[in-house]
């Protein structure tokens, strides 16, 4: 492709495949191989988003990946993305420094319906890096705390060293209006917290199934069993939401990669209601 053939045109926001230029404003290292980037749009604009949505982040010359937005939707300021190094592009993202350029397309996807829980209790069940896509839910709940009943955050990680947002979890614990339970799959002897699979936290949370909405996010296996634990506790399938993940190249429903049966995870999801997903959550190789 010859650059000479490329016409000089201002970035057409109408073309959803064109990335907009942003810069890394801040970078924090979280757990091993995981960083959180705060991005600011080069043109000074602010991209609004709903909890659960994601952006396609480009490292120019390397590639593009979908990353959930994990900041507070109500706050002005940059776009927050927590990225784990699992491949070429995500690795490049984790190696960026403040001031570096990133391409942003989005926000895309369906969102966590936090308003469904108004007046009732909320259970947020997360595992591993799944805490990132649900963090905006917690910010939304805190921003209007009086409109919700009991809030429970049940979080499972692999080991204590891999507990995401640990300082923030500790800060939230200091609020007296949220119950936070953290467990790990295994730990060294100096860990004083719970050890065990995260689904065990559900019966301990004493949910009131008649007025609970649950948001579940994490590896697919964890979400599967997490949903089962919630169903065992009496929560209705239509009150459980989860976030699915599939390969994405376009995020606009045109590349075909993110298909899960009849749904496109990028535009029909990534947030789905448990009963609407049906067997798609458990079907093999679909």
């Amino acid at each position, binding site marked *: 492709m010859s650059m000479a053939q490329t016409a000089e045109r201002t970035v057409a926001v109408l073309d959803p495949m064109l990335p907009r230029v942003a810069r890394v404003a801040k970078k924090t290292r979280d757990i091993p191989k995981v960083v959180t980037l705060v991005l600011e749009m080069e043109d000074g604009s602010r991209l609004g988003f709903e909890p659960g949505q994601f952006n396609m982040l480009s490292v120019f010359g390397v590639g593009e990946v979908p990353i959930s937005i994990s900041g507070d939707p109500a706050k002005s300021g940059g776009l927050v993305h927590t990225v784990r190094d699992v491949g070429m592009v995500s690795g490049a993202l984790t190696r960026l420094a403040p001031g570096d350029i990133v391409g942003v397309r989005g926000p895309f996807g369906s969102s966590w319906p936090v308003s469904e829980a108004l007046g009732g209790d909320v259970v947020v069940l997360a595992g591993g890096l799944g805490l990132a896509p649900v963090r905006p839910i917690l910010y939304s709940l805190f921003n209007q705390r009086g409109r919700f009943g009991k809030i429970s955050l049940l979080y499972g990680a692999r080991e204590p060293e891999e507990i995401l947002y640990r300082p923030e979890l500790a800060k939230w614990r200091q609020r007296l209006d949220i119950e936070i339970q953290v467990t790990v799959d295994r730990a060294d002897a100096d860990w004083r917290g719970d050890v065990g699979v995260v689904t065990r936290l559900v019966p301990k949370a004493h949910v009131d199934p008649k007025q609970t909405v649950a948001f579940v996010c994490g590896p697919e296996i964890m979400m599967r069993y997490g949903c089962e634990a919630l169903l065992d506790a009496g929560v209705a399938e239509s009150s459980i939401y989860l976030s699915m993940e599939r390969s994405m190249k376009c995020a606009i429903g*045109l590349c075909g990669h993110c298909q899960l049966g009849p749904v496109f995870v990028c535009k029909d999801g990534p947030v789905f209601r448990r009963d609407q997903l049906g067997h798609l959550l458990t079907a093999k190789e679909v």
Partner: protein
Amino acid sequence: MTPDRLPAGQKVTIDKTGINALLVALAKRGYRVLGPVLHDNAIVYDDVSSVADLPAGWTDEQSGGRYALKRRSDGALFGYAVGPQSWKKFLFPPIQTLWGARREGNGLKVLSESDKLERYAFVGVRTCELHAIAIQDRVFLQGPYVDTHYKARRENSFIVAVNCGTAGGTCFCVSMHTGPKAEKGFDLALTELLDGGHRFVVEAGSIAGEELLLELPKRAAPPEDIAAADAVVAKTAAAMGRAMRSDDVHDLLLANMDHPRWDDVAGRCLGCTNCTMVCPTCFCMTVEDSSDLAGVETSRSRRWDSCFTMDHSYVHGGAVRASAKSRYRQWLTHKLATWIDQFGSSGCVGCGRCISWCPVGIDITEEVAAIRGGRE
């Protein structure tokens, strides 16, 4: 000055010089005129400027895993079915640059790739292909996001359809309700008549088609020409190479995701992606980023992809559809079943290309029948 108008619905008869005049008139209007040509032992779509470029007197013989050209005893210009290419080659090109970016000082500028504005005139579009184009219109133009490249190419195109006079060996448009008669979606539609003089019955399907028709040497089509044209289409409809009961396929396939037939076909399928390449409705694509050595100029392009590749369903950790069985099943259930949930119609137009161009001759009509468990 108002030009003459043809009486509404009036069909005309033209002969070979008329066809030539049609190609010339399209070129004069600034279209890039594309039609069937002989190339590499197949009939493919490429630039045409006169009737001499068309594959006169050639037909194709197709069956499972087999495509061969054969000489006809007459000089029919459109006496074949479909070749390995479809019009998606132009509307949805195999490789398309999306944008380029250039670092300037500390900043970076993203430049949209402007498509060299080409207006395509497609000559010789089969009815199944009209349906395929309509299906891709639904995918690229009627979702929440519009593909700007497809839109630009599609909006400026002119379509000359051809009613099939010869049924292909692997065709089943009748089963899929996608032919053989062209009903809509064309600017002009012609039916080739060979008995009693080589001529074509033409009807307009749009104002643009009507205007073009006015310029061509023609005569009002006599009733016997119109009857002959109808007979040609009826004969083709009766000679389909394949059939597939299509009213129940959605539920049939989705209720049989663990049918042993999937393992059976997986044992034959090479994962070569031929079927997805020749299929006129397949739209899967991937993106590729590239950069110069200094990282100053970068670009992203979009290219055809296939759900048969291991890469297609790769999420960190591995492919969701790792087995050949799951990938074949994904393709066929998408094409015939979940496509309906997504876009309101089947994704298959019964053109038979996937059957002819599969190296091992996998026949989707046979696979569906096997899963149904009986003879059709």
